[in-house]
């Protein structure tokens, strides 16, 4: 009888261990919604100005998961939508994850987007967005580092003669808590705040 009990409990233990081991592998294979790079890239250390007019470096966010996007404030169409979706995503995170996640919005419109404008702009988004601006040269450098394409386009029709808009790539870049650029989302993915929230927690859990 004792042998039998030992056999059963031994097998159960082995089975349990096997399941845990298999489960660990499965956790690793769990797919991300984001387009994850085959191998992490170096996250260029951005040096810009925050919405309070203070110097900012991306490195100061080390330890947090950073969601980085580029746009401009004179855009009532795409950029507020992206930030709105990210605000919704942020609300879906448990408080522990919120504390370790940071949304950063960088302006590609140095002519109009001063720190004061950025401050007004990010204020409604739950106050959890860092809005960065810089000189034309700094923005050019930052955009190049992340493969952002942008161009100033004169806007046709009436009103002040020098109305312009900026055509720009609208992706969301993920920089993990170790300062590595690991993934990105394309514009159409950004609307799915639920899946991004899941990804964020997944990124934060993996070390």
């Amino acid at each position, binding site marked *: 009888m004792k042998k039998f009990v030992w056999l059963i409990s031994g097998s159960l233990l082995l089975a349990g261990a096997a399941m845990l081991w298999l489960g660990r592998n499965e956790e690793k294979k769990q797919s991300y919604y984001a387009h994850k790079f085959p191998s992490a890239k170096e996250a260029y250390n951005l040096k810009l100005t925050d919405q309070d007019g203070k110097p900012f470096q991306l490195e100061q966010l080390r330890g947090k998961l950073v969601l980085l996007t580029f746009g401009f404030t004179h855009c009532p169409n*795409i950029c507020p939508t992206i930030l709105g979706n990210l605000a919704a995503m942020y609300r879906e995170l448990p408080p522990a994850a919120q504390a370790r996640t940071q949304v950063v919005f960088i302006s590609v419109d140095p002519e109009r987007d001063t720190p004061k404008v950025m401050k*007004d702009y990010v204020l409604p988004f739950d106050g959890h967005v860092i809005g960065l601006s810089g000189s034309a040269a700094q923005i050019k450098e930052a955009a190049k580092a992340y493969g952002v394409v942008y161009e100033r386009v004169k806007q046709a029709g009436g009103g002040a003669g020098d109305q312009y808009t900026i055509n*720009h790539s609208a992706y969301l870049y993920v920089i993990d808590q170790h300062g590595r650029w690991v993934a990105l989302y394309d514009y159409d993915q950004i609307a799915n705040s639920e899946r991004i929230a899941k990804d964020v927690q997944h990124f934060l859990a993996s070390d």
Partner: protein
Amino acid sequence: MKTYQSGSVIALLLFCSNALFAQEARVQVENGWIRAVPASLTDSAAFMTLVNNGDHDLRLTGAETKVAAMVMPMTTTREMKDGVQVMGMKRVNRLVVPAHGRLVLAPGGDHLMIMSLKTHPKPGDKVTLTLRFDPGKEEVAVELPVSLTKP
């Protein structure tokens, strides 16, 4: 000729319609809203679904409002450049609401850009836009809520 968003008013007018009203635009506006923007910004946008119950295509050519200098139809563009998708906005002369069909104006797509704001409506305010349609320069006034995000 101005008509109002209220369905019952349109119904009443249609009921009373005769040859005089034969050219009236049979367009309804649903789920409209205007983006609230901070005081430092000069432009905003209006989004809505336009329903055309008539037999002929309608062309939305613009709008008028007390809160801004002009309202222009815009489309969102996407093009591949240097391997990435670049998005932009372009003014168009008109946006078509097909006969017995609908046109959705939404972020990331076609929309009405409200340019050179004179006042800055706050979330919760209501703003009247008088939409202009061809043929016939028909006008439809709608009162839209102001919101930070889609209500």
